[in-house]
């Protein structure tokens, strides 16, 4: 678990002891979270990943991963096929984040969603004082090369969840790769993660 990225480590920690539960990791990358869930908690984890080389890495770890696009291929999964769906640091790259959120909560009983917070003070000050699209630790790629086409803030996400009728079960905020407290999170958090339930309004 020590090798997991901070948001994935929280999921692995929170789901520990949930042996036999089913998890779908959307945009699962090289399968690090899935492998941890399987090996440490006996969780039945599946994945979707768009990059064929990453899918190949997952397959060679004995993981079940389907090459596909989160924007279109979640539709292939039946309702509530999973206990949890996971979408970590992928939301801003999707063409319609709102629809993905619908799908995550249709396919899973609950969803973990993490993303870089565009309202972090460094991002704000880069825009405010630099007058340029921010290039920060959390958002390291220039505006013309980034895959993020829908930047989002903590406040935006909470509003979208509310609009969807999704219930925010838990929330975590991160700065410098560590968990931080909730107060002033929309200013202080480089990354945020939410656990949602319900939805489908």
């Amino acid at each position, binding site marked *: 678990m020590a090798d997991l990225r901070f948001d994935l480590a929280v999921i692995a920690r929170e789901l520990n002891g949930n042996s036999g539960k089913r998890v779908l990791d959307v945009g699962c990358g090289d399968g690090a979270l899935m492998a941890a869930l399987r090996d440490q908690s006996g969780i039945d984890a*599946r994945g979707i990943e768009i990059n*064929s080389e990453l899918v190949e890495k997952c397959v060679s770890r004995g993981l*079940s*991963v389907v*090459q*596909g696009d989160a924007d279109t291929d979640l539709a*292939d999964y*039946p309702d509530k*096929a999973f206990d949890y769906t996971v979408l970590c640091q992928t939301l801003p790259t999707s063409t319609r984040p709102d629809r993905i959120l619908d799908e995550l909560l249709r396919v899973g009983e609950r969803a973990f969603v993490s993303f870089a917070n565009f309202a972090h003070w460094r991002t704000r000050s880069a825009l405010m004082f630099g007058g340029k699209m921010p290039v920060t630790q959390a958002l390291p790629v220039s505006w013309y090369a980034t895959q993020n086409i829908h930047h989002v803030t903590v406040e935006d996400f909470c509003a979208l969840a509310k609009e969807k009728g999704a219930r925010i079960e838990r929330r975590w905020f991160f700065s410098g790769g560590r968990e931080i407290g909730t107060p002033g999170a929309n200013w202080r958090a480089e990354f945020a993660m939410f656990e949602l339930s319900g939805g489908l309004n």
Partner: protein
Amino acid sequence: MGRTVKGAKLCISSVRAELVEALSNLFASCAVSNQEQTYQIPDDLPLDSGQSLADAQIAYETYGTLNAARSNAILICHALTGDQYVASEHPLTGKPGWWERMVGPGKPIDTEHYHVICANVIGSCMGSTGPKSLAPDGKPYGMRFPVITIRDMVRGLVTLLDGLGIEKLHAIVGGSMGGMQALSLAANWPDRAARVLVIASTARHSAQNIAFHEVGRQAIMADPAWAGGDYYADAGNGPEAGLAVARMAAHITYLSEEGLTEKFGRRLQDRDTKSFGFDADFQIESYLRYQGSGFTQRFDANSYLYITRAMDYFDIAEEHGGKLADAFAQSTARFCLVSFDTDWLYPTAESRHVVHALNATSAKVSFVELSAAAGHDSFLLPHDQLDRVVGGFLNG
């Protein structure tokens, strides 16, 4: 002996004398450890058509050692014109095994760890019972051979596994028609394989697939030498011309336009200008003619009719009440499907269709579309990423 791959050659009871002679010459000349392996199916083999096949036999090759628990067997299923010589020299052509780059010691399907079995399907012509085999009346079946299906082929393979005492395969692996057999085993004998690896294949034949096969069949049947399928008496005077045309047409479907353009373009064959005739002016023409005529040396025209028919009848969903997901409802196997982006014979959408069905049943499924220039045939050609997916899936 000289090679660590332990191939085993078959002996075909019904084969012509010269073939037997060729085989024995081969045994004498090559250093592969040979063991004649033909399985006699003990009972009549029931067929989907309602008929049954009496006294049928299956010729097969094995590589690597079966462990004491009999749990390390991998069954490789061959494609339309393939055979059991997956990693050993072909007795008629002298060419290396058709998947030698994939199967062997230290290769992705590692014969140092796994006991690999590859059997000739029924209906084929390399030692398993097919239209050129002798019927109970002592004459070749010809068109009296019953029409078979992919499921019938797999039923034959299952009897072989029974005979070998292999209850559950570590994996069943197949490309193209081999993939159809793997899917058919998963759907109809869900307890017989722990892993199912399906490469460049489909769960049903499309109208376009059937159309190309029909062109091939009509080419064979239009050859006067086909003689209603009763051409075996006059060796060497069968419907070679028709079979070659069938192969040429099919071969185009195995390649991509990109691959053809790269390999041949509009280049001329051994000449500087067009001949203003109907010789093989273009390299592609010469290549196809070569493929066609080479094929007739090793394959039986009637087998081509029967096996293409079996593929055309293939539709796993239809076998299971019209819903593909229902076909896999009983399966606990892990699945892996691989497609190639330039394969227009069994395009990625067909693999996705299977993945979709497997997702609906919560099966453990992986899927990857690989990039390759060579079209459908890519699964037979060197491809590092394919090697890693195959090795990773089998060992994972």
